């Protein structure tokens, strides 16, 4: 496999206001690379939902974007509480977010389903008490 173009971002967990900044930056970078607008939209929505999740549930984390000639890989990693039941978390409408998050327009249990909806492959590796690593791929 050819070398990837890589970008790394730290996601600040203390500030809901800044959640999504990394996704906005990725969107701009992908535009500069002349990636297809539909692909850009899918990558940025999936990453944005992931970023929001990391801020809501895991006190932040890191995001790595790897761009290969045939696909874009998004790796989101945190050291938060982990996901107890991944199957349940993947169901639309299931959420453990608090009411204060719902009042901000999130926490409807659409985050992980949306990440799956907009990507070609998603792998969730989570250990309760240790953290979560989500790897998503979008084919080019």
């Amino acid at each position, binding site marked *: 496999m050819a070398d990837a173009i890589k970008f790394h971002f730290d996601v600040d967990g203390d500030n809901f206001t800044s959640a999504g900044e990394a996704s906005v930056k990725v969107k701009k970078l992908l535009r500069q690379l002349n990636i297809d607008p539909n692909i850009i939209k899918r990558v940025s929505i999936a990453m944005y939902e992931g970023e929001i999740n990391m801020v809501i549930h895991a006190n932040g984390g890191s995001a790595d974007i790897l761009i290969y000639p045939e696909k874009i890989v998004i790796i989101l990693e945190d050291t938060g509480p982990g996901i107890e039941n991944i199957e349940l978390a993947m169901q639309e409408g299931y959420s453990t977010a608090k009411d204060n998050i719902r009042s901000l327009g999130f926490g*409807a249990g659409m985050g992980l389903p949306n990440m799956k909806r907009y990507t070609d492959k998603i792998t969730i590796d989570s250990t309760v008490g240790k953290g979560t690593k989500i790897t998503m791929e979008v084919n080019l």
Partner: protein
Amino acid sequence: MKIRTIAELLNAKVLCGEDRLDNDVTSACGSDMMSDVLAYVKEQAVLLTGLVNPQVVRTAEMMDMRCIVFVRGKKPSKEVLDLADEAGIVVLSTEERMFTACGALYKNGLPGKEC
């Protein structure tokens, strides 16, 4: 429909993006749940919402939307407006409630499509 027409129909104030009022939009959606906007919206260019936090702008930006209409007289902070301006999104504010605002636009020919 031109964004200018939306502002007129809703008797809305233009809070940012005055220079982009002549841009055309072909569909709209109304929601206070940003996750649903991210899930169900396809090509809609206008978002009507009663939420005024920065994530509304980020959501609209992710969806390549061109205009946000804050309903129920909601006024966003300068920080929110700066984000919208940077993203090239027109921001309007109307006293109308969500249902009435959506209805006025729909009645005048702005469809909703899949939202």
